[in-house]
């Protein structure tokens, strides 16, 4: 019983996804990084975007919303794993 609890605990902790935030999404969330609880069962880019918009409707009002995985733009159907570096990319405005 104790062993089972430990396994569940570790699984939850290890599988928390951390999302890096920049620009306006820092202002919207009031945070520089966001933890996605494992029990949300988010496995794709599309799933992450939907969850974010539910949590923070202001994110749904942006001109565009992209997700980068390991410093590369990801497609909606791409899979997410907790080991990846995941970042939310609101509309860029360099230059």
């Amino acid at each position, binding site marked *: 019983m104790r062993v089972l609890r430990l396994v569940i605990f570790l699984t939850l902790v290890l599988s928390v996804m951390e999302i890096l935030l*920049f620009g*306006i999404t820092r202002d919207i969330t009031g945070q520089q990084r966001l933890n996605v609880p494992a029990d949300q069962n988010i496995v794709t880019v599309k799933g992450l975007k939907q969850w974010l918009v539910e949590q923070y409707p202001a994110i749904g009002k*942006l001109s565009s919303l992209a997700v980068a995985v390991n*410093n590369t733009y990801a497609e909606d159907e791409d899979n997410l794993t907790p080991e990846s570096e995941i970042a939310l990319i609101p*509309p860029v*405005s360099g*230059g």
Partner: protein
Amino acid sequence: MLVKLTDCIDINEVYEYLYSDEAGAVNTFLGTVRNHSKGKTVIKLEFEAYEPMALKELNLIAERAKQQWPIYKVAIIHVVGSKQPGEAVVITGVSSAHREASFEACRFLIDELKKTVPIWKKEYYEDSSVWVNAHP
């Protein structure tokens, strides 16, 4: 390729890098902070970058330019941090044998930079501020 993020752009460094005895043409684009935007007085701009990805994207753009045009050297430098009107924000530059390639590649660099590189700017006016491009 001279590709970096920096606090302050040094134009002479860019020219020294681009100069080459083989190249006859050097085109550069310099973006600076305007004191007006959409009818409002601009006090300052704040630039924030997702630095590792921004560098990766800048290098990708420079590589694509080198594949597309016969060019010798490519420079792209963008600032991070706070900038006031008149200050340099970005410089793109290309050297090539003939002028057509230098103009076209330099234009490509700045156009692509504005589309894909994860850098964000917040414009500060006298009484408000806004993340540029954030909303439709």
